[in-house]
């Protein structure tokens, strides 16, 4: 059987990849994907915990997270489309109208 630590390690690695991706990539779509990566790393750890602790709560939570993530992606893409209509930009350094 795969030990719990491995799952936690995997989850942490994916989470960090997500964070780093979010921070260094300027393309909004990729940033969105990075956030999805972070969410999925959480899903992995929740399911792993759920299995090892013999508690269903974690898995239930995962369903909620998946649902919310879908809604989030829909809304994010919609906002991006609205932005794209006004200004053909998908890079964050092109949307710095407001600052200071």
């Amino acid at each position, binding site marked *: 059987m795969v030990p719990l630590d491995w799952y936690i390690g995997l989850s942490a690695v994916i989470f960090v990849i997500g*964070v780093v991706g*979010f*921070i260094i990539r300027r393309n909004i779509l990729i*940033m969105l994907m990075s956030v999805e990566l972070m969410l999925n790393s959480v899903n992995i750890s929740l399911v792993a915990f759920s299995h090892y602790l013999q508690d269903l709560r974690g898995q239930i939570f995962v369903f909620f997270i998946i649902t919310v993530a879908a809604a989030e992606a829909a809304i994010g893409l919609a906002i991006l489309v609205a932005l794209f209509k006004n200004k053909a930009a998908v890079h*964050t350094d092109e949307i*710095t109208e407001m*600052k200071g």
Partner: protein
Amino acid sequence: MDKYLLIPLLPLIAFTINIIFGKGIIKERAHWIAILAVLGSFAIAVSTLIEVLNGKTINYDVYSWIVSGSFKVTVGFLIDQLTAIMLIVVTSVSLLVHIYSVGYMHGDKGYYRFFAYLSLFTFSMLMLVMGNNLLQLYFGWEAVGLCSYFLIGFWYEKKSASDAGKKAFIVNRFGDFGFGIGVIMIFLTLGALHYTDIFAKVGTLQGQTINILGYNIDLITLIALLLFCGAVGKSAQIPLHVWLPDAMEGPTPVSALIHAATMVTAGVFMVARFNPIFSLSETAMNVVALTGAITSLFAATIALVQNDIKRIVAYSTVSQLGYMFLACGVGAYGAGVFHLYTHAYFKALLFLGAGSVMHAMAGELDIQKMGGLKKHMPVTYWTFLIASLSIAGIPGLAGFFSKDEILWLAYNHGTIGKIVWLMGTAVAALTAFYSFRIIFMAFHGKFRGTHEQEHHLHESPKAMTIPLIILAIGAISAGWVGIPAALGGSNAIAHFFEPVLGHPHVTAAHEEEFMVMSISIVAAIGGIFVSWIFYSLKPEIPKTLAAKFKGIYTTLWNKYYVDELYGFIIVRPTKWIASNILVAVTDGKIIEGIVNGVPQAIRNFGERLRKLQTGHLQHYAVSMAIGLFVILTLVLIAAGR
């Protein structure tokens, strides 16, 4: 709702209604709301006085705003004998002035605004006298000052009026600064703000000293003198008296209400209210008595030679206020407040009479250009005469009894008392002289103004004469509550005040009292007589005298050059410092470094910090990540891992 609350609340409601709806809806009907409100207050004040006469005193907190330990900010009422009399004075004079203003301010474009301010003033004054704690007193104190500022500068298009308003405001800052420190010191040393708590604890301060710049100063004396600073400013005593004569730029009803009967007497009220503190310090008492006596004499001499009718009355007010402080200073608080009460009526009457004259003379103030007004405006003449007789101290009238009480009690107060008694008696003679100077010059003789003015002369409308008549009744009879035992009376008012203000114990015989009384009567009649000779019988005498004693005359005419002195020692140096030193220092970047530098440094820092807010989403995310990382590191270090 209890009725005491309504006393100040009614004028406040009237103010709110008039200020909001005055311009659009109410307009020329503004006086109805204001008059009804103050009438209601007056009625309740009367019923309250009856309750107090029956031995009731009221002391309670209406409303607690902030309570935090011993720091209690509350609105509360203390209605005892002192407050009850003040309530009657304030509401009755305010009511009459309101009615009078209907005639006087008729057609003014700020009509509703005027009544709104009058109501606000009445509210503030009532809060001041009814308060049961220091903060409320302070609030009322500042609020009446603010209303006075608005009302002096009511005709703000007129430069002299808005200047006078500013002057009153600035001069009062000096006094209020001391008063404010006094209030803070009382709270710091006694930990109390309510009068009853303060008076209960003040004894514990006896003998304590405070070290200031190496000098040990008696704490109670210091507190009393700081409080007295406020009184000096508000009640226009030397050296802060300069604002009151200038305040005559305001509409005359305002002068009658604020600068004669009520606001300026707030200082006397305050000293009387804090008599448990003042009485503990002999030094403070002597300062109060001497300040009062000197101011009284000083202002009376200035009044001798002035020609502006309102200014004469204004100096007479300063002088009479000095009388009241003189009384307080010799421990005769009751007599001081008694004089405050009679003075309110005859002085308001003098002002309103002067206003009536101005009304007829189309705004003319110079008594040299008047004369013979008696036959044109009989009501004004007779009421003005009554007021003058009253202030001169002719037996039987209100002024006589209160003035006599003060002089008699001063006479019995040791050496210092004898000195101020002498000064007071001299003032009595001078007062009679200058009061009748107005009578003889303005109302008797031949008219000396232009033909046009003479044609225009007329008696004022009913709205103005009726208040005059009512006040005249007051000026005659207000003193009858204080007929001394020597004249077969019971001196009811002294006994009435005794529980709050105490009453000096006098053992001297009636004969001695008769002597003191006779001296002041002689002084009064003498003053009137000389005035008659000078201004009616042989009008050339004053001119000869003025020419002969030119130095004295010009000094008096220029009011002892006090304004010029202040201009020289305060205003000019300030301006000079501002224009030379400050600018020089600013060029030298010293003041700039302190005054502008700190905000500027923060702004510069802000501008730099602003650069961090780049608008880049990445940078925001990095900031969050770094924040997280730093917090985690610090927590781990703190946890010792």
